[in-house]
């Protein structure tokens, strides 16, 4: 019991929670805006991988860190465009197309990596983003080390949550995105293009997802290796439901998951001698399933999610 309280009271634990949550924040925000426009994007797992690889490789080839971030976003946008073309004007199954994009993006990333680096035993490293000490704030006791000693990408993720909420709820574009995910006919009858709004949103959402991947290779670690995304994309799809498609709740969900994960690592070192380690590894997933069961039953799905729209058909 004492150990648990000690874990929860350490600034180090909360810093880790926020760090673990960062790629999930990017992922869930990206998935959320795609779904708000009515398109489920199961390409997320592959887009994470593509973002991780592309960002890392750009830096390894000599680009600056922010250049790498842009390249990652561009890679995500490109795979998003594939998904958007397949699912919006062509109206194919969003599930099938999404899984296809994941397989394609993952395999292509591995292929390019292997082609560029045919025989390296240990993955080459880059100079990754370093924690940014925000003056004054980072020196606050407890809160400073917990919240304000993160890498720039974490702050970018938090900013994106705010920006997404603002765009979605306060701008004409956000209204159009919300409407197109609820009833595309409402958008068309007001003279807007359903296809343009849906495709644009999917491309932008995919670019944001890819930043989650970029965080992995450019902040959390400083190299790319196979299997590093490790299901984070799928977690984001679940978190989107958990968040009822709201950016604020999405942040809470991602942080909750990050906290579970950080907690299990620490608990493992405390009581790992008599409970098998796998139990702890399972914990965040089991807890997120439990949270989903509680929340998702009342989830308010975008009504047009998964429903393709064809002009002149009703």
């Amino acid at each position, binding site marked *: 019991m004492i150990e648990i309280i000690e874990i929860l009271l350490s600034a180090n634990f909360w810093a880790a929670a926020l760090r673990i949550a960062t790629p999930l924040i990017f992922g869930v925000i990206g998935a959320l805006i795609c779904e708000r426009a009515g398109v489920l994007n199961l390409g997320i797992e592959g887009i994470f991988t593509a973002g991780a690889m592309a960002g890392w490789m750009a830096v390894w080839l000599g680009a600056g860190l922010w250049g790498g971030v842009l390249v990652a976003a561009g890679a995500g946008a490109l795979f998003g465009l594939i998904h958007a073309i397949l699912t919006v004007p062509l109206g194919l199954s969003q599930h099938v197309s999404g899984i296809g994009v994941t397989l394609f993006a993952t395999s292509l990333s591995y292929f390019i990596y292997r082609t560029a680096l045919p025989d390296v035993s240990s993955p080459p490293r880059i100079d990754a983003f370093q924690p940014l000490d925000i003056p004054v704030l980072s020196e606050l006791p407890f809160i400073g080390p917990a919240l304000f000693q993160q890498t720039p990408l974490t702050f970018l993720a938090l900013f994106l949550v705010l920006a997404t909420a603002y765009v979605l709820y306060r701008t004409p574009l956000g209204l159009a995105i919300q*409407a197109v995910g609820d009833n595309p006919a409402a958008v068309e009858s007001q*003279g807007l293009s359903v296809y343009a709004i849906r495709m644009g949103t999917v491309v932008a959402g995919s670019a944001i997802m890819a930043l989650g991947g970029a965080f992995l290779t450019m902040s959390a670690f400083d190299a790319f290796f196979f299997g590093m995304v490790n299901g984070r994309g799928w977690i984001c799809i679940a978190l989107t439901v958990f968040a009822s498609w709201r950016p604020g709740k999405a942040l809470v969900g991602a942080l909750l998951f990050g906290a579970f994960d950080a907690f299990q690592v620490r608990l493992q070192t405390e009581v790992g001698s008599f409970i098998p380690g796998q139990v702890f590894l399972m914990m965040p997933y089991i807890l997120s399933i439990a949270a989903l069961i509680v929340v998702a039953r009342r989830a308010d799905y975008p*009504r047009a999610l998964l429903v393709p729209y064809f002009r002149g058909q009703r």
Partner: protein
Amino acid sequence: MTDPIQAAETVLRLDGITKRFGDLTANCDVSLDLARGEILALLGENGAGKTTLMNILFGHYVADEGQVYIASPGTGLSELEAGSPHAALEAGIGMVHQHFTLAENLSALDNIVLGTENLSALTSARKPARQKLEDLIARSGLSVPLDARISQLSVGEKQRVEILKALYRDARVLVLDEPTAVLTPQESDTLFATLKKLADDGLAIIFISHKLAEVIASSHRVAVLRGGRKVADLPTADCDLRKLAELMVGHEIVETVRSKGSPGAPLLALNAVSAGEGRDALHEVDLTLNSGEILGIAGVSGNGQTMLARVISGLQVPASGTMTLAGNDETGANARKMIDEGLARIPEDRHHDGIVGAMSVSENLAIESIRKPQNQRFGLLRFSAMRETARRLIETYDIRCQGEDSPARLLSGGNIQKIVLARTLDPEPQVVLAAQPSRGLDVGATSDVHKRLLAARDRGAGVILISEDLDELMRLSDRIAVIHRGRLSAADPTEALDRGTLGLRMAGQSGEAA
């Protein structure tokens, strides 16, 4: 055709519009003029091409031949870009679709403003929008709670939001597709009063309808479409019901006449049945159906009719209350048991619940009796017997199809309904549950449905007729009950009722029969 005096004020002209879908010609060389301040009724049966024509006007479809011309303020008529709702809106055409085009997750205000602002704008200018709308509401009387989410609004309010959408964009031509289909008679009266006021202010209005009475009461001019062609275009003052009906149908109409029924013993009874939740729930419904009568259930769509039909057909277990059929308790019986006990279910959505489109006509005809010995032996289906029955039913019920093996989805709506009628009525059921049985059917198919229902009654079956069409109910039913917000009124003899009383009850005001 146009009066030369009005020609100067023409705001809209359709010129030689032709539209084909595959082999079907939906519109053939249709021309139409509309003047400022005029209310034009576009009359026609289902499938006459009314909606197609208006969708061409609004840019949802592109015409194969012909053009649309619209007057812009100060200048004469100019051609409207085809196939672009955006261009139509810009030119001042507003359209209220039959199925509302509103985003349920947004407020009324947001729905109205949607698309009128630059998408790259960083803020939505709601304050001036609200000001303009409040002015519009004050002038037109179209009261709407601007900040309520669409999902919380009533059907009438949603329709007013749709009209406000057009007015907010300064529409000069307003098109309404079957605007009264979802309204009570009183709500319809209010709507037409509003439209008259808007027309007096200079708005040109086209409303699509197949209801003759409202066309005569509320329009200045009538254009009649039949089979995609315009067959008449005349001032409403020169029309009467009979003339319009004949123009619409193309031949003289023989109405189904109901003889006085001879009701027998109670057959089906519901006692204080509650079921479901939300808008379509039932609350303590009592109902008694006698043999040899047609009991009509009137109501505006979405007031529990669907749930009532589900409960009676055994698709929904009531939360409380009991149901008996011929004296046996059937509460909680499933659909198969109800069919075995002698219930015929004519479902509301015949395409979705009435047939399996990919299966053949003969399979669809046998689908409710595949366990009967005539259709199976040792658990294997007897296809030859099924085909034979199918051939007999196709003959008796005049089902127009390529043959008993053709997929049911290829049939027209009227013929699909004939499959349902043949399947359910042929075994001579005790109780017939007919939910919206003539919805979307043309006059011929409708009168066929009516004859079959009356025949079922005359051989002693009890018929429950759920309908939104008051004329149909008053013509067929021996007694009529009204359902409103899941509560069912007592059933009164049709002779003691009139449209006004029924309309009040449909709106939830339990005025006693006058």
